[in-house]
């Protein structure tokens, strides 16, 4: 009964979608807004990667909201799981020596790779979110490989808050310098070099560290006592 009912709903939805989609051809020429970004992006923001210039400059306020949502998730997660009573720890087979050594060996390299990704966000694909996720996966590996070594939750929390505050402070500096929140007030530099694009690398460093700490914190909270 339930299945038939949901199938009927889905068929109605599919009809609406078909009517809607048939008006939007696939692979059509770009839009006015998108063309403007491609033409003026380097000149106005200094970033070679146009997606980065949109994420951090043209639509930087969205990114602030996005960072807030991640912060919110880790806060909410901590609040919901905070008062979980300590269960008796199940018997975990300790990881073998090879695994532990490999994890220890790989961990700094993963961190370095993540840092590279978010430092070069304005030049190559990638950025703060991707880099942060890679850093967090490094922490995940560490938890799997050396489960007895834990990083203190409070240090994650501190990095999260500081990252968010750094983002807002950069935005407010732009406000005092140029009259607009998140204004790109630093010199744009020569395109396609590491030290270019004004505030973009600074914000990406803050976001990268923040996202890395947040995701690692989420994994840490979830994995606790399991």
């Amino acid at each position, binding site marked *: 009964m339930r299945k038939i009912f949901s199938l009927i709903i889905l068929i109605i939805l599919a009809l609406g979608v078909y009517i809607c989609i048939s008006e*939007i051809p696939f692979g059509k020429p770009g839009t*006015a*807004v998108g063309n403007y970004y491609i033409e003026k992006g380097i000149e106005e923001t200094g970033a070679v990667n146009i997606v980065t210039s949109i994420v951090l400059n043209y639509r930087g306020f969205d990114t602030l909201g996005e960072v807030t949502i991640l*912060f919110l998730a880790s806060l*909410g997660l*901590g609040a*919901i799981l905070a008062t*979980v009573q300590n269960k008796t720890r199940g018997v975990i087979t300790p990881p073998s020596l090879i695994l532990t050594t490999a994890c220890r060996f790989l961990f700094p390299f993963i961190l370095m790779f993540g840092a590279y990704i978010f430092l070069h966000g304005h030049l190559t694909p990638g950025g703060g979110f991707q880099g942060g996720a890679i850093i967090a996966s490094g922490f995940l590996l560490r938890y799997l490989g050396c489960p007895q070594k834990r990083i203190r939750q409070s240090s994650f929390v501190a990095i999260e808050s500081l990252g968010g505050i750094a983002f807002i402070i950069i935005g407010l500096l732009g406000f005092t310098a140029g009259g607009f929140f998140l204004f790109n007030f630093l010199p744009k530099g020569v395109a396609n070099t590491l030290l270019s694009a004004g505030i973009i690398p600074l914000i990406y460093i803050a976001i990268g560290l923040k996202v890395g700490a947040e995701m690692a914190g989420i994994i840490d909270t979830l994995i606790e006592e399991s």
Partner: protein
Amino acid sequence: MVNPILLIIAPLSAAFIIPLMGYGLKRIVKFIPPLVMGFNLVVSLSLAPKVIKNPIIVFLGGFPPPFGINLYVGPLGILFSCVISLVGFIVSIYALNYIKQGAEQKYHALYLLLLTGATGIVLTGDIFNLFVFYEILCISSYALVGYTGEKAGIESASKYLIQGSLGSSLILIAIALLYGKFGTLNMADMASRIDSVHTMELFFPLVLFITGMGVESAIFPLNAWLPDAHSSAPSTISAILSGIAIKIGIYALCRVIFTIFGATDILQFLMLLGLVTLLVGEFSAFSQDNIKRMLAYSSTGQIGLIVFAMGVGTQYGISGGLFQFTTHALSKSLLFLTTGYMIYRAGSMKISALEGMGKKMPLTSVAFTIGAFSLIGLPPFIGFPSKFMIVYSVLARQSGLYIVFLALVLAGTVIEGAYFFKVIQAIYFKGERKDDRAKEAPLSALIPVIILVLLIIGIGIYPKVLTSILDSSAAELLDRIGYIKEALK
């Protein structure tokens, strides 16, 4: 002049700072929300007179729309932002002594983030930015409903989360389809490219928007989560969710229907939807014996009334709807705040457990009665002028169908009166309390209650203070061309 961006940045940065204060400044964390919300209230009030004359457009990052994100601070946005910061301020004073269980610091941070999301939604002029703030609002509501970690809270939070995120996915699909069609995300730019919604391919995104935002604003077939979520959370959270969060869904809905689509053809459908929501809410509230569930269902009914008033579609009707929004925000938070300590002292949420409270907690009981009278729409309180405006605007349409609708709305009001009188009777005229546990609420809880009572009576006696802002807000919603011109200037 203060830049309106501070209305969003101030609570956001406070929320970021709170976790850092865990290292020794724990005592003062709870004073941050009242401080920030007081600041927001002052800023909103100081902006209001300017905004009524000319809306303020703020470019973010220095890029003009449609290339950058803009804030459109019109009378409607400022009205909502004033009410949000007022209710947020009052509820946060109440929370000073009330919130003791669970993770206290996280509660305050989540509370500030919820208000940030609400303020962001009402001020932004970009549809995707609206979606981002909408998600902030939704996720912080899920977290606040479940943050105590108790059985009922967790259960209703998970149901709320599944339905809410389904709704936001639908909104995102609608945004994607609109972007594919028009190639822009700015609401004014999008509105200037939409001529009519008669064509099917625009009708479908509109339906998706109504469904998605209907979940958050609890319009009838989508309101299953509301009674659970609002009744299982602590009273301060119920107050803020009922007083603000669901109303923001209605704001988003009105913005989409009136400003972006200009869909005046579907207004009768909206009226019908509001009417059904009202009747369902009031009838369900009538059959409850748990006071918080009763208040939650009554919120559904009031949402129905607001949607109904919005559907009238005339300037007077929309002003009435916005006035009713203010009424409900003040009265319902008053009701939840007063019941908070009554339940705490009685130890149970059953209406029968509140018998005899009138003698033990006189001030709180009187405040509860005032809130209930105001919601029903009795004269010296704020509910009277707002309900009067709605009734008058419907009569002004002079159509037989509208009169029938109005009769049903008034029948809903009668039911509302019946269940509130049931509670008032239980508080004052039934039973005797022998136990000593029931005593008056502490001062930090009485001050916000008294502020709310004064506001309710004050605006009720002199409703003209709100007239100018209500009228210009309604004009902003109806005047689509003016909005487009101002925003893309």
